[in-house]
């Protein structure tokens, strides 16, 4: 058992290393391939439109050595990376890893809370509608899911703010310093995720209900309550967890909009600014961190899946 676990960890560790390299290289290549003069972009990001001009751009070019050959710039980054150093932000000067450390914490808090909210909403609805397909609840939640999914997340967020902040005065509009501030952004994200995942769970439950396993256990004479828990839910859980894993990967970047709307400091927000401002060090660092989180996430999902259904971990 332990051997297996260590082997799995090693495999993922190797994968993490490869992912880190690929992500770093690809994001570097893509940033280099963009048209336009990076020095101008970086100067714009630093000084704003009132103070940014060609002279400032020239100063930035000199300071960061942007006119050096791209291979030299890449080599510098790799060398620093080998020493676990993500370098300095082109726009904000300070260390990239420090910036990411601050922002990642906030993003993870928001993402995990949103995931928690979505699970809380999606599983009961999905299981109930899956067990009672084509009933009124099934139809109602289908329409509701479609409606919610077609509303862009910022409109969902604004609606929640209008109801819970403006009218009911229960939660603050924006900010991040307290638990109260977390509720509305987490629900905005969570509702959007649940709108799709409750349908996936419903379909999985429905299929598990009609599967041979279920029939078999009924024939075996197991009482239906036990059948439900032992077989149906277990079989339905696998695709559901897989799907939620996929959503989780989206979530980390999906928070961008929510972070902006609720003035929540986060990594998605930082990544966008870095791309706009051609902050190559910051883009590489952020992409790398998100890539590694993704690998970690896969590990958790693999583990959950093999725990639910050992057959899926045969390879």
């Amino acid at each position, binding site marked *: 058992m332990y051997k297996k676990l260590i082997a799995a960890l090693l495999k993922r560790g190797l994968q993490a290393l490869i992912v880190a390299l690929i992500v770093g290289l690809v994001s570097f290549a893509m940033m280099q391939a963009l048209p*336009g*003069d990076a020095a*101008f*972009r970086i*100067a*714009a990001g*630093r*000084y*704003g*439109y*009132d*103070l*940014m*001009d*060609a*002279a*400032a*751009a020239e*100063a930035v070019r000199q300071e960061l050595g942007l006119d050096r050959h791209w291979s030299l710039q890449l080599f510098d980054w790799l060398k620093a990376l080998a020493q676990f150093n993500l370098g300095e*932000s082109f*726009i*904000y*000067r*300070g260390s990239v890893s420090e910036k990411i450390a*601050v922002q990642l*914490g*906030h993003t993870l*808090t928001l993402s*995990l*809370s949103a*995931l*928690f909210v979505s*699970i809380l909403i999606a*599983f009961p609805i999905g299981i109930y509608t899956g067990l009672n397909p084509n009933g009124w609840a099934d139809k109602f939640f289908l329409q509701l899911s479609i409606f919610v999914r077609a509303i862009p997340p910022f409109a969902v967020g*604004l609606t929640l*703010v209008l109801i819970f*902040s*403006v009218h009911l*005065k229960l939660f*603050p*509009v*924006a*900010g*991040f*310093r*307290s*638990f109260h501030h*977390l509720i509305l952004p*987490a629900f905005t994200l969570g509702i959007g995720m649940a709108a799709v995942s409750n349908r996936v769970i419903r379909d999985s439950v429905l299929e598990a209900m009609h599967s041979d396993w279920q029939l078999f256990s009924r024939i075996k004479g197991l009482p239906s309550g036990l059948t439900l828990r032992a077989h149906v839910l277990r079989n339905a859980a696998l695709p559901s*967890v897989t799907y939620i894993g996929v959503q989780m990967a989206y979530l980390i970047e999906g928070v961008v909009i929510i972070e*902006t*709307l*609720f*003035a929540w*400091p986060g990594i998605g927000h*930082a990544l966008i600014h870095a791309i*706009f401002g051609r902050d190559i060090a910051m883009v590489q660092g952020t992409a790398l961190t998100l890539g590694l989180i993704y690998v970690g996430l896969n590990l958790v999902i693999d583990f*959950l899946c093999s*725990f*639910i259904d050992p057959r899926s971990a045969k390879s």
Partner: protein
Amino acid sequence: MFTKSLAALGMALAFSTIAFAHDSAHEEKTVKIAAPWEITSFDLAISGYVIQKLEIMENLVDADENGVLRPGLATDWAASEDAMTWRFTLRNNVTFHDGTAFNAGTALTALTRAWKQPGVLSKAPIKSITAEDNVIIFEMEKAFAALPALLAHATTIIPAAASFDEAGAPVAFVGTGPFKVSAYTPPQSIDLERYDNYWGKKAKIAKAGYLAAGRAETRALLAETGDANLVFTFDPAGFNGLQAVDSVETIAVPIPRVVTLKVNAGHAFFADPKARQALSLAINRQAIATSITRFPEAAASQLFPPALNSWHNTDLPKLEYDMEKAKMLLAELGWQKGEDGILVKNGERFAIQLRTFPDRPELPLIATVLQASWKEIGIELDVSVANYSQIPAGHQDGSLHVALYARNYGLTPDPIGTVLQDFAAGGGDWGAMGWENAQVAQALEEIAAKGDVEKRAKNIALVSSIIQEELPLIPITWYQHTASIDANLEDVIIDPLQRSYGLSTMRWKK
């Protein structure tokens, strides 16, 4: 069962990462400010303007809300007879938030740093900066009257030595102002406490908090619910909505910022002033100001707004809106309507590109209006909404046709530095392009060099009338600075130069 463990994990994380913050009942309420600007870095060349507004750091020279200079960390200043040397006498008995003393040494270090970084000082004709006892001396390369105004700008605020590490990298915000930093979460928020050893009049409120909220919708809601007591910069719709909210007072102050078009006068299409006049005639400024920015009185009749009182020229004829005249002027230049309704001359279609950026949400809207309006006089406009650096970049490589942006002539209390950059010989990244006028250049040099009031007024009138005639920049609307104030706050001063949020003078109503 895995749902349970996930739930537990989620809960644990949510609770552990987030600290509970609440004001206890007997303590005075924190004044909460919301504005769009993020505080992204300790580097003052980048975030100095927010640090200045929050009164964490101060300048040698201060300015009141009318733009009149007054002593800051310097008690007085004077230029030599020929305006080649400036001497600033520093205030005694000033301490930084970390308890260290403010002296000529710290001031010199800060100013030298500001001079070497992009900012207003780097563009001034400074030869050297030195310190002598408690006096800072600027040697100029040529006569320069506007130096004190530059020393009131955000890029020349004075940080303590403790703001930097040994290598000289900025690591903290330590200043001399009436407020000190108690918490900072980049880029979103900064918390302030009153600095009790402040040299001047101490602040009346004990605590303040700043939140950067990027979306105008968010800020309007923060104001409406009272989650922020002082909110700056609204979108027109949000500002309108707040009028009906009793718990806040809204205020709009005209500021010296102008939405303007930069036209490449070096381009064959626009070389003749008539072409630029035609573009200008085909802009319905009144409709734009009424419907988009929603301050009808702010439709620009000339480049310099009334808020810039010494530069606004009441004698100038207003810029008109006249589509027929625009068509006529273009016809005089030899443009003829082609098959698709677009003008043609010598086989070339009048198809041009306009560059603008989304950071100010009204700019893409105005660009869309121009696109529709110019189409009627036969000009095909491709609107490119992207990063604003494409404007100076296009100025440098000559590829720019027209650009739409908002120019701030209130960067320093005296706008001469900015005007000089925009209209002196050779033009500027954010000013004239491919356009030169010897008379204007000469007049501007004189204004910059000498403080003679009468001569100055005459020169300014000359500059503004030539610019109005030749239209190297085509002004569209002037700006209003919008803010909302909690009805429970009093003595709030909204600074049109946007140098300060007025935190040190305001207080809670008893």
